[in-house]
Each structure stands twice: as C-alpha cells, then as structure tokens.
C-alpha cells in the first residue's frame, strides 16, 4: 500500500488542472479555490465572551451584521445567519482552529469541520455579471451587493453562499455533491462569453 495520501477536491473529476490556460480570452474566468479548511461555527452573537473568544482565536472580530464578512491573515469569516458563520482557513489548519475554538469558547456554541463538504469557486472576468445574472436572483448592483458582502441564496438550482471579492469577482461556496452540477451550469452559461480556467 502506498503511503501517499491522495486528496481530491469536489471538482477533482473535472480535471481543471488540465484546462488551466487553455483559453485565454474568456469573458468568464473560473478558479476553484480547492482544499481549504472550512469550519461551521454556531454561537450567540449577543454573548460578549463568545465574540471575544472567537476574535482571540481568529484575530478578527466576528462579523455580526447580517450578510457581512471579515478577513484576517489566516481566516476568512462569512456571516451565514445571526448565529452561524463559515470560517475558511488554510488547508490542514482547520483541526487546530477547531481545537483552539473549543478550548477558548465557553457556554453554548458549536463548531463543525465541514472541509470535505464544500468547495470555493471564484468567478471573475468581463462578463461575470452576466453569468451571475443568469444564475442567481440576488441583485448584483454594487448598491445592493457591495464588496465584502456575503449572501446565502440560490445559484441555478443549487444553494450557495456568494461573497463579493471585488467589483467583478465573486466567491461561491458550493456543496460538494452539487459541485458537478454547478460546474456543468457554469460551462453552459458561459458558452457565449468564453470560459478561461485559472
């Protein structure tokens, strides 16, 4: 038995690595930010101890405003619900972070490692708004969807959390079992613009 441990992201089967760079001119630029550590955190946002505890571990205040996000050197945090957050950390560090959170937090809270459950997709490019308009009913205008905002909504027929990274760059959190569907959808919807994989 080989000792090499094969780790495979949800989109592994799409063989994205072989597609990288094949098309340069696409109006849609697609990137799978594969294999990050994902933690689901539940807790009471009115509990100061909880907030400071999380800040201590993650080095950044927990975003408590609806649909907001925060970022530190080591973690990206997305508001999912008044008592629920997604924490994305470097691959492998999720165990540490989970342990630290458990050690630091008191009272009623929950942490679940969901690193295998989902993947991050980054969509950008000249036509990214067109693609997004095809895929989600959420209003993408900067007034309604400013940079840094994260919304839990639908992406085609899948659920997704969408974070705006810049004016023309979005990050999608997609469930593993839906990732093939989302990939098919993106390929189909980008046909008229061209799709570049990076």
């Amino acid at each position, binding site marked *: *038995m080989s000792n090499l441990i094969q*780790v495979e992201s949800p989109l592994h089967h799409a063989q994205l690595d072989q597609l990288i760079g094949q098309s340069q001119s696409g109006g849609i630029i697609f990137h799978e930010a594969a294999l990050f550590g994902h933690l689901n955190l539940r807790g009471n946002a009115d509990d100061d101890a909880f907030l400071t505890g999380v800040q201590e571990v993650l080095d950044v205040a927990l975003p408590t405003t609806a649909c907001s996000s925060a970022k530190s050197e080591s973690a990206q945090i997305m508001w999912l619900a008044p008592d629920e957050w997604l924490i994305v950390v470097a691959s492998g560090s999720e165990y540490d972070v989970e342990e630290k959170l458990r050690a630091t937090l008191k009272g*009623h809270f929950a942490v*679940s*490692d969901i*690193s*295998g459950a989902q993947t991050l997709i980054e969509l950008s490019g000249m036509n990214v708004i067109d693609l997004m308009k*095809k895929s989600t009913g959420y209003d993408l205008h900067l007034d*309604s969807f400013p940079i840094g905002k994260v919304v839990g909504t639908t992406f085609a027929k899948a659920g997704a959390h969408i974070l705006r990274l810049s004016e023309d760059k979005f990050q999608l959190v997609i469930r593993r079992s839906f990732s093939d569907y989302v990939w098919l959808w993106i390929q189909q919807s980008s046909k008229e613009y061209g799709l570049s994989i990076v």
Partner: protein
Amino acid sequence: MSQINRIAASSKRINRTRTLNFTFNGKEYQGFEGDTVASALLANGVDVIGRSFKYSRPRGIITSDSQEPNAIFQIGSSQSSTIPNPRATQTDLYNGLTASSTNGWPNVDFDLMSTVGKLGGSMMPPGFYYKTFMFPQSLWMSYEHLIRKGAGLGASPTLSDPDSYDKMHQHCDVMIVGGGPAGLAAALSAAKTGARVIISDEQNEFGGSLLCSKQEINGDLPSLWVEKVMTQLTKMDNVLLLPRSTVFGYYDHNLLGINERRTDHLGENQQQCSRQRVHKVRAKQVILATGAHERPLVYGNNDVPGCMLATAISTYINRYDVVPGNELVLMTTNDNAYKAAIDWHQAGRKVVTIVDTRSASNGELVKRAKSLGIDIIFGHAVIEVSGKKRVKGVDIAPINAVNHSVIGAVKHLSCDTVASSGGWSPVVHLSSHTGSRPIWKEEVAGFVPGETVQKQHSCGGLEGIYALSKVLSDGFTTGALAAQAAGKGEGVFEGSLPLTNDPQEDESMALFHVPHSKKTSRAPKQFVDYQNDVTAAGIELANREGFESIEHVKRYTALGFGTDQGKLGNINGMAITAKSLGKTIAETGTTIFRPMYTPTTFGALAGADVKQLFDPARFSAMHKWHLENGAEFEDVGQWKRPWYFPRPVETMQESLERECLAVRNDVGILDASTLGKIDIQGKDAREFLNRVYTNPWSKLAVGKCRYGVMCKEDGMVFDDGVTACINDNRFLMTTTTGGAAGVLQWLELWHQTEWPELEVYFSTVTDHWSTMTVTGPKARKVLEKVCDIDVSNDNFKYMDWIEAKVAGVKARIFRISFTGELSFEINVQANYGLHTWKAVMAAGEEFNITPYGTETMHILRAEKGFIIVGQDTDGSVTPQDLDMNWVVGKNKEFSFLGKRSWGRDDNQRDDRKQMVGLKPKDPTFVLPEGAQIVFDKDQPIPMTMVGHVTSSYYSASMGYSFALAVVKGGINRKGQSVFLPLSNGTTVEAEICSPIFYDPKGARQNV
C-alpha cells in the same frame, strides 16, 4: 417588379439594398431587410394567407401587430427548427425564410374543407358539439377522432430543438413596458434622476405608434425624435434597453417576465448564443406604457382578405413602404383613422371614399382629407363586403347606431380594400395579470387599468390619453414620479417638453357592431373574433340561450380563446353582449386577461434547466470510481447511487447474487456517503433527541451508536437512522438519503419555533463525510490491514464507534450493520473519500472484496427484516405496525413527537396492517413488489385486500425467495397462508412468517 405593392422609398426602416428571398406555401418571393413576413407578403400582393378554423373561409392579413388573428404560420425549414404559429406581423423577414399556412387543405387557395365549412357552417353555431354526437357513447371516440383531425393550427416540431435558451434576473428602480412616445418619455425622465431603468418593447425597434406616424415633433418627423431619445438612453449606463422583448407576464410583487428574442430575426441555426432569453425583472416601480389597440368594426363578411385595420394601413405605408391594395374604402367612427386614408392617398393610390359613421365632423384631419379631394360620406357604414378571396366591393348604407338599424338605401361601391376603425382599446392586459380588474372609462370608451396593490403606474395611450403632446407630457411626468417613488429624484421632470401640434379632433362615436339590413342572425357573417370564427350572431345566440355572464359567452363561443387572446375582438364582443342583454359595457365587464401577453416559447420558459441541468444530479466523492467500474446507477432523490456493479455478460440477477454471496461469505463494500448526517451539539442535544425520536437517548454512552425512528406528529414513521454519541454534548445523527434535507429542517423547525430554550445547534455534515460500509465475515481482516488501531471485537464492539486512521486518513468508524454481517462503516473527510475507498479495495482484494450497490444492500437488509422508510412504509405506518415496539420509549418524560397520536381509536385497532415476512409456497418464485394480499382467494371481485408486498427478493445465500409485506393483523397470523392474485391471472400462496429471515439471533454481526 414582383413587389407590386411596394411604393417609392420613403421609410428608413426598409433597406432596399438587401433583398431577402423567402418562400410562402412553396412559392418564392422577395422582400427587403426591415420587412416583417406580413409586410413582405402584402408587398407581393398575396391576399389569401390561410383559412379560418371552423368555416374554412379564406383569410388575409388584418393588422400589423400583436393583434393579428389570421396570419398564423408555420415557419422554419426542418422538423427540428420549425416553429408553430408565429404571427407574420411580428416575424422579421430573413433570407431563406420558409413559411406556410397552418390551415387549408389541400392548399389555401383551393380548400376542400371550405365546402364542408359552407355546408356545415349553418349547422355549427356555438355549442354545436354539446348538442350532438351523443349517441351512442361508444361512438364518441370515433367522432372525436374525426373532429381532432381538423384541430390545431401549426404542427409541433417532431425532433428536438437545436437551440438553447437562458434566463437572466434583473433588478431596477423603474421598469417601463412599452417604448412608444409615452414609454420613451418616461424612460428618459426616470433615467435622468439616476434611477436604474429598464425599458422593453415587443417590437424590433423602439418608437411604438411613432413608427407609423407623420405627426411632427419639434418640427421633424417623429422618428427623428425617437432616434434622439434612443441616442441619449443608449449612452446612460443606468438604462437597459430591451427591444424585441415582450413582457409576457406581470406577476406579484412587481416581478415581470420578459421574453427577449435574440436570434429569431437573424434566421435559423444562429447558435452562437441562446435563441431567446427570459428576463425576470424585479422592479421597485413599474410603468406600463403599453398604448392602445385600434378596434376593428364588425360588419358583414368583414373577414374577406382586403379588410384591414386603419392603423395597419398607415403602418404598412409609412413603416414598410407597402400599400396593401389599390382602391380603399375607409369606415371610421373617429377622426384619427382619417390618417389611413390620407396616407393611402399620398402614396398615390385611390381612396374611393371615407364612410364616417358619425353624422358630421369638423376635425382637422377631416378637413385635411377634404382638402385632398377625398370623398367623405357621413352617417353611413359599410354593412357588407362582397368578394371571396379579395374584397371586390362594399355595400354602404345610412345607419342609426342607437337603435341598431339601417335607415336608408344600400349603395354598392367597388374597391379592393376596406379599412375600419372603431376607436381604441387601451392595452390593459398586463395591469390585469396580478388580479386587478380594469374599469370602463366612458370618456375614452375603453377599459383602463383599475385599482392595484402593485407599485405600478400607467401613462399614455393605456390611460386613454391619445393626443401626442399629452402622451409625451404624461410620459415625462410619470417617469419622474415613478423614479421618485423608487427613491430617486424629486418627482418632477426638469427638461423642456418636445413641441408638437395635436390636430384638433371631433368626438368619436362608440360603435361596436355595425347594423345590417337583415337581423344579425340572418345577415352575412359578422366576425368578432376571427381566429375562432366567433360572429356577432354567435354571441347573440349564446346570450339568448342563457349564457349571459361575459365569462360564459367566452367559454360558449370561444371569444378570446385564440392565440391573440382576444386583443382584436374582445371589447367588441363584450359590447355586443352588453347590448343584447340591455346592460352597459361597464356592467358586462371584461373577461380576465392573463399571461402570456403574446405566446411564449416553452424553451424560453424552461431556460437552461433542461437535459442534464433539469435537476441537479448529486454525486459522492467516489463517483468516478463507480463509473470506471461499470456501475449501473439508481436515482435516489437527486443522488446518483450505484445500483449494482455488473460484470461483463452478467445478467442483473447474476450480479446481485454474486454481490450478496460476497457479502455473506467474504466481504463487500458499499458507498453509503449519501446518507444524511447532522452534527448536533449543545448541552441539550440528548433531550432534543428524546423529543424527536421515539426511543430514549438519555443513557446512550459516549462512543456508542443507536438506531432511532422519527415520527411526525400524526404518529407515522417518517425517517430513521443511527445516531452516535460523540460526547455528552455532541451527537452525529444519520438520516435516509432522501430524507436528509427534510429531517434537518424538521429539527430546526422544532428548535426554532417550540423549544428555543434548548441549547442545541444542528449543522449538516452530509457532504463532509464519505462513508463506506465494509461488511462481511472478512471485513475485519480488510480493516486490520488499513487501520491503525485494534479493531478486534474486544476493543471495538458492535454498536461502538471509534476514531482511527484508515489508509493514513483520520476516520470515524461505526460498528453498525445493515446487512447482518460484521460491518464497519468508515467515515472520512470527503476529500479523502476516493483515496480511502481505493485503499480499502486494495486491501480487500485478497479477500474477494466486492463493491455492491443499493439493490444488493436492499436484499441483504431485507433478509434481516430491516425496513426501508418509504419502501416498506408509506406515511400510514407506525412503529407498532412495524412490530418495532422496542424502538418506542415507554418511560420518556417528554411526550415525544408522534406519541399522542398513537392513542387515537384508529391506532388501537388490532387489524392494522402490520409488517411481516412472507415465504412463497414456491421457493423459487419471487413475489412481485406491490402485489396485493388476500385471505380468501376464491372471493369475487371486488376483493377484500389485506395488505401488500413491500420488498421481495430471491436470496442467494438462503436459497429461496422471500418478501416483506404489510398484512392486516399480520403479527398474530404468523404461520397462516395468504394469497396473492397476480396481474397475469394466477394466484400464488405464501406463508406469513417473521420478517427476520437470516440469522435471527444476530450472531453474525456480533463477532
């Protein structure tokens, strides 16, 4: 020149440098870029374009827009690209277009059915079908078969659509429907506030009625003003312009559905992008600027080709440089329609006369017509047209509209074209879609939008405002107000209004039905709704028979049922009804306008959600392996699960037997990743489980697993699964594959709404874990090879779970068994799922490890009497019915979900259907699943059924067939015989037995 009706170039919309060839009914014609199919046919002097549905009368083009009832074609060159029923007036011409009529056999000029129509016509009043073909009932199917032969307009494609479709979600402050003067003014004024504006128009370019008008704006042709506005709007990046885009539906909370036709005008096979796109617009404010439709007049033989709407005449002349005839008679109730005669005259063709139904008018247009030397006869009407395939002449007569009579001598005039105008009907369709009823406005003699709860405005023709200067100022004002309501601007339009002189117009006459010297019932047919051959006489007959509600009239006569949805005829029909019942039009009211405004392509409505994207297909991390290893798949919910793994030349049964035996004798492996998994954390997790499961959880120790059953409050089983105690505050619940989302929402429901005081959180971890079941007597041997800890029975007992490394990967292993064999359920983080699976496969090779699918899993569990919720249960089964009293907590403090319902009378019956096993008398015979069970095989039909087979298989390991079933009172009937009358007429016997067939003591899983 073949385009005999094309006049000298004046419209900028027709590009004479691009001649387009097309065929209609097999004959070749030419038109120009900018033509519609209708304008090109008229340019070529084609009169008969189809036959009417019921009477098969020759029909010609009547309108130039969405109201067209006759020119409904079959367009497209192949069995896959053909389009049934597009309207020629709304179809842009492209090179190579092929069109044909949808009715008319053997061809439209000579139509056999017309003979039938003529003979049968008088026998086919409304309600005809209801009154005949009743005897005998058995023959109706034959009659129907014949009737259906004549049904339908166009034909469906018979091959799959080569095109694709898509959708876009749009959001805006102000959505404007209609790009006529009102809409354009509103758009400009709203956009200037910085509001996000979308404006759409169904036509291929913006301008609406201005495209066929010559009334000057700022001293120039109106089209120049349109161009200037368009230039401004195009430059603004807060404006989205959607030409060729029909708003087909106005839905609640200001959602509009728009169908943009992206390639239809370019020709077939334009596959570089979607053919059509549906925009779903959520607008803060909506402005409807949909204008008004001209109403035709209803007179004898008004369907003979050459009878047209007055505006259609102006449109064909001014927009397409086509004069659709030589000698025109115009019948009008108003000044505005005089424009058609003036346009005709100025195009150099003869206006025979204008027949004005009013006693007099001194409006400016009337004066202008006079000054051009056009003959005008007041107080008269065209009461009847002569001609069959083209108008040959008209009978005109003086009329009294009030008492609906002809009051003088009838005079015959020769002509080949009759234009008519009975006034205008505001296009209230969209405003009605959300449930608002239009209201009759006497001063405009039309219905206008009524009260609504939507954030909606209307302006221009839709409000019955027709004078251009007023239309424009209304548009500008409404645009500013709507923007303000959306939070943009001050609500006033700042710019200067364009200058335009409205010709002074005298009052119109409200006339909906032209009298004839004969009674309506005996007069020549006066068509109201052309597409369904609805006549004034038919409507009056319906009224006489008691169909008085306008909705009854519609349903009895088919008024408004056609593909134009009564745009052309509805108001006339309603007015005729009102008159015949002695009511006002306001009292009679309208029928309900509903989506679609104009017909909308199925493909566009489905968008990209077709074929493999119809519904998401969900896959586990090991899917690729399954594919490579030849799995057949089963759909379970949205998941694709391996069903079985056939080897070359194996039948399915052979595969199943091989897989089963491998598990019973050696070791098998199943991908169980699709099971729902919920991470439950918090100090009250245990209590929560006590409340939602039927069995108790208070004593489940850390490191242990337990099977649980969930019931709805009605006491019926709805999910089951194993839950493991991770620590005192943490449990991992598993659910059925199909039930995963539902169970999570169920838990949240109870927590959020009833028991928020319980400290517990739920998170789905279904996708996080890849789960593989390694099962069979050699399972431990396999696991030992890849696992870093001692998995002996001493160290790792049945119903325990442990953390360990498998193939170098952190794993949770559960010693639970759904097969009855020694089993290990290995869970690893899904990114390592495939790796681990492969490692286990490699380790198991020497032990004949065999991948198996859901079908084998079903057989193995059934041998053990384990149920599958949804297969062995159906929403009417309690745990007691399943003989699973052991899973019901007797001493739980909290009255857990479902418990109370078991106390009801029906649950106390001892003849409830209960889960049992069945052994067929013939041990090789597999009972069909779904077979019904009776106690007495000799009873007559209807039989008393006492249960049915829920699961049934041949067991390779036991060597006989067996089944699970529910049987009335079955638990106490073990050993008795039951009978199963099968669909092939035979009846088989089986014996009721325990549902646990294999290893009843459970020894094998415990080793």
